[in-house]
């Protein structure tokens, strides 16, 4: 991520243009580790066969050897140290793919297997993916930022295509025929037009062939890239509907104990003293105190809870700021730093002059609250020591980073720590860290037995991290014909992603100002982009109103970007923006934008009950385009899911806190979207086969909140500038 280190302005400029700009609050990872396995170790471990590895671009592999086979990949050379993925075809015909990416509900176990199946011409069901195991899979920074589709999907396609070519070359040599006459079909190589064929497994018997392909090989030009774009169901769907799949919290080991942690009454509390407890012998309790860390492990969860409740501790607490002071606090506590941690600024033209000279000018402030990811599966870990070697099964988006965390916390070398990540119950950017894994490891060491720790919902709501809150000041100037001439936008704390405007404005000043902040904050599905789009797209509506123009026409007048125009037009068309008129008490709203290589426009119809002030979203239309479509059904699922989740943050999700305590750490007090909140959601997919695919886990969320706010404005004349907009209905907003 060397681009992160450039001069600030260049960074911001690059951010708006690049599809995969790193999110500020994504925990950044150190440089890629060296992978130690030797070529012969691979075969010892995997058995004979054909191995294709994808080398990261830092290493120039096979370039200088000159002895490349017709397939165009390095052959029999030493393996590169930095690898992103590999694929092995064994003599038994088993195809195994290894990637450090993890499955968190975004369905990449299926979409990656699909990519391999298509290129390798191999039945999908016979491809095994080993994911996110720090001992077996290549290093990976983490599964976030919607990067899996743009990177890993293409890399695996290339790996699988290279493997296919190698199989064909093997068959050509075996039969002494021209490779041109051969083709790979459904797990066999055959001589075209004849009945002669051979199974992959047979072909690779006794072989120990390796091929290395560089990850940055010029991609197959997107125009020729054949994406089948077929919809296929989850490869292991049956395990989920039968309850067989074992999530991180379902892992067990013989002799396993259950852990519980004693939590401080408020953030940053330090443990002053704790009574020497006496436990029921039958409960087999281990008690640990280490600094301000205290916890127990016991034979059952029940026994652990009893033991925990018997502890009496004295804590030292610090006064802290509360919800009510939050936004004033953020604005008055800028962080004065340089480099990546400092302010980012982009300026062009003469903002102050153009603003003053504009026919209409407007200033507004928008805010976003802290919210919680609240994945349905809370953090969970099972830790096991064997001597000084530690194995932890845990739910995380970053197994390799958690390995580092464990090694540091437990003072053991990283080589002695293995982290495995069973497909987990979602994360949405909320599980980048390894708190639970470290706690389980600490208890397991003391107990001298495997310990499982599953956080309670309250713990997950309190001790995980939050989507940053923020304040955004916007000013804009337009000519009376609706032309945008000046734009000023300052985001305090919530993040720089998508902070730049995609509308044309000759004069702009755009600032991201980091601040001090009261709660532990981190990644969230499209976190800063959601806040920045909310402010920008709400403000565009306010400007349209000032210019007395239709909100869509006003946007299009100031928008040149073709891809964005296309999604706005597609959403409006499907929605009937120019045809339908809202019923009394209803309003239409539109919002959209660009982030992480995806373009989205969202139209919303909101219904407001005048009496109760209750806001119901009547329907949503989302138009989305992220390049070539890999799997349309899954893409739609992701888009619908993002919008359902977005309803919560837009309408009612909000963390209440006071003096270091979370006041609503339960689903009964923190409202999340439910069945009845969800309107019909119509998705329009634009397929751009000429553009390599980008991920879609996040961007589809960003147009929703402003579209809702704009619809509520049209219905009621009331402008809502804080997320969530109606935690207690409109009358108290």
């Amino acid at each position, binding site marked *: 991520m060397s681009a992160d280190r450039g001069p600030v302005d260049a960074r911001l400029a690059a951010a708006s243009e690049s599809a995969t700009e790193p999110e500020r609050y994504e925990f950044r990872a150190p440089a890629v580790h060296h992978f130690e396995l030797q070529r012969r170790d691979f075969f010892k471990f995997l058995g004979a066969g054909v191995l294709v590895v994808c080398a990261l671009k830092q290493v120039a592999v096979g370039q200088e050897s000159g002895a490349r086979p017709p397939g165009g990949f390095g052959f029999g050379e030493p393996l590169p140290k930095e690898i992103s993925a590999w694929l092995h075809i064994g003599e038994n015909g088993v195809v195994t793919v290894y990637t450090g990416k993890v499955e968190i509900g975004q369905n990449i176990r299926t979409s990656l297997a699909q990519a391999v199946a298509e290129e390798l011409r191999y039945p999908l069901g016979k491809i095994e993916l080993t994911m996110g195991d720090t001992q077996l899979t290549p290093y990976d920074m983490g599964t976030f930022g919607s990067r899996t589709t743009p990177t890993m999907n293409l890399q695996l396609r290339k790996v699988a295509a290279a493997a296919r070519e190698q199989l064909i070359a093997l068959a050509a040599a075996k039969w002494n025929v021209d490779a041109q006459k051969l083709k790979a079909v459904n797990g066999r190589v055959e001589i075209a037009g004849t009945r002669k064929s051979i199974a992959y497994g047979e072909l690779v018997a006794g072989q120990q062939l390796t091929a290395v392909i560089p990850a940055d090989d010029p991609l197959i030009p997107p125009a020729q890239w054949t994406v089948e774009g077929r919809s296929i169901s989850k490869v292991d769907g049956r395990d989920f509907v*039968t*309850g067989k799949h074992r999530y991180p919290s379902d892992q067990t080991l013989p002799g396993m104990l259950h852990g519980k942690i004693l939590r401080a009454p408020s953030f940053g509390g330090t443990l002053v003293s704790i009574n020497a407890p006496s436990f029921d012998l039958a409960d087999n309790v281990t008690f640990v105190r280490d600094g301000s860390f205290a916890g127990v492990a016991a034979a059952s969860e029940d026994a652990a809870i009893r033991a925990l409740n018997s502890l009496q501790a004295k804590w030292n607490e610090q006064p802290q700021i509360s919800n009510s002071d939050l936004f004033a606090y953020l604005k008055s506590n800028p962080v004065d730093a340089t480099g990546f941690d400092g302010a980012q600024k982009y300026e062009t033209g003469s903002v102050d002059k153009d603003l003053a000279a504009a026919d209409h000018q407007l200033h507004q402030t928008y805010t976003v609250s802290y919210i919680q990811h609240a994945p*349905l599966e809370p953090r969970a870990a099972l830790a096991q020591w064997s001597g000084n070697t530690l194995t932890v099964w845990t739910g995380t988006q970053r197994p390799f980073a958690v390995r580092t965390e464990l090694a540091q916390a437990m003072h053991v070398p990283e080589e002695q720590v293995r982290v495995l990540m069973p497909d987990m119950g979602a994360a949405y950017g909320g599980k980048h860290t390894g708190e639970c894994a470290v706690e389980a490891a600490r208890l397991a060491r003391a107990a001298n037995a495997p310990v499982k720790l599953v956080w309670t*919902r309250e713990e997950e709501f309190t001790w995980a991290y939050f989507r940053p809150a923020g304040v955004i000041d916007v000013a804009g100037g337009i000519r009376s014909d609706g032309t945008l001439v000046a734009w000023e936008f300052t985001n305090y704390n919530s993040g720089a992603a998508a902070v730049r405007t995609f509308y044309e404005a000759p004069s702009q000043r755009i600032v991201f100002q980091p601040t001090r902040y009261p709660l532990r904050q981190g990644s969230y599905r499209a976190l800063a982009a959601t806040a920045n789009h909310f402010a920008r797209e709400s403000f565009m509506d306010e400007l349209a109103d000032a210019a007395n123009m239709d909100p869509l026409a006003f946007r299009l007048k100031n928008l040149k970007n073709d891809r964005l125009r296309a999604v706005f037009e597609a959403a409006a068309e499907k929605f009937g923006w120019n045809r339908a008129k809202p019923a009394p008490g209803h309003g239409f709203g539109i919002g959209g934008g660009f982030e992480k290589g995806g373009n989205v426009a969202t139209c919303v119809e909101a219904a407001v009950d005048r009496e109760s002030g209750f806001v119901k979203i009547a329907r949503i239309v989302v138009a989305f385009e992220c390049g070539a479509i890999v799997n349309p059904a899954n893409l739609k699922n992701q888009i619908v899911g993002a919008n359902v989740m977005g309803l919560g943050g837009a309408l009612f999700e909000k963390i209440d806190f006071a003096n270091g305590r979370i006041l609503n750490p339960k689903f009964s007090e923190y409202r999340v979207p439910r069945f009845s909140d*969800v309107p019909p959601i119509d998705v329009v997919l634009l397929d751009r086969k000429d553009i390599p695919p980008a991920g879609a886990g996040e961007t589809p969320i960003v147009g929703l909140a402003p579209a809702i706010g704009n619809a509520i404005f049209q219905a009621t004349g009331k402008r809502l500038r804080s997320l969530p907009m109606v935690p207690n209905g409109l009358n108290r907003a």
Partner: protein
Amino acid sequence: MASVIKLHVNGTLYPVTADPRASLLSVLRDQLDLTGTKYGCGEAQCGACTVLIDGHPRRSCITRVGTAAGRQITTIEGLEQHGKLHPVQEAFLAEEAMQCAYCTSGMIMTAVAFLKANPSPTEEEIEHAMEGNICRCGTYPRILAAVQRAAQKGTQS
């Protein structure tokens, strides 16, 4: 304190040693290794822990194991019969009504009980019956479609 409790789960009788006040959820998961039933909140708010007790949907997180003694308990693991999935399970697969699928067992159990009581429901009735189950991944529209599909299958057969 701990005593021996007879639990009938998925047609099998298990004597378990547990404090009768312990949650049914923890006993199912930790003692019987039936981990298909999930923890999501512990306060009857999310439905991830739903099981059937004598055919009725119950939140196992707030059900004391002692009160379930001697009753017929069905968990997600007990729906499949002789290798054949329950129509609701089939429908969830057919509609791909899951993302992370952590909510799926609770959704399926709730739907199974509901469709038994109301084999041809309206969309509103389904929505109402499922309102207590949270899908944080937001797969609600597909889950609705899956329950509808199962209902149609059920009335056809």
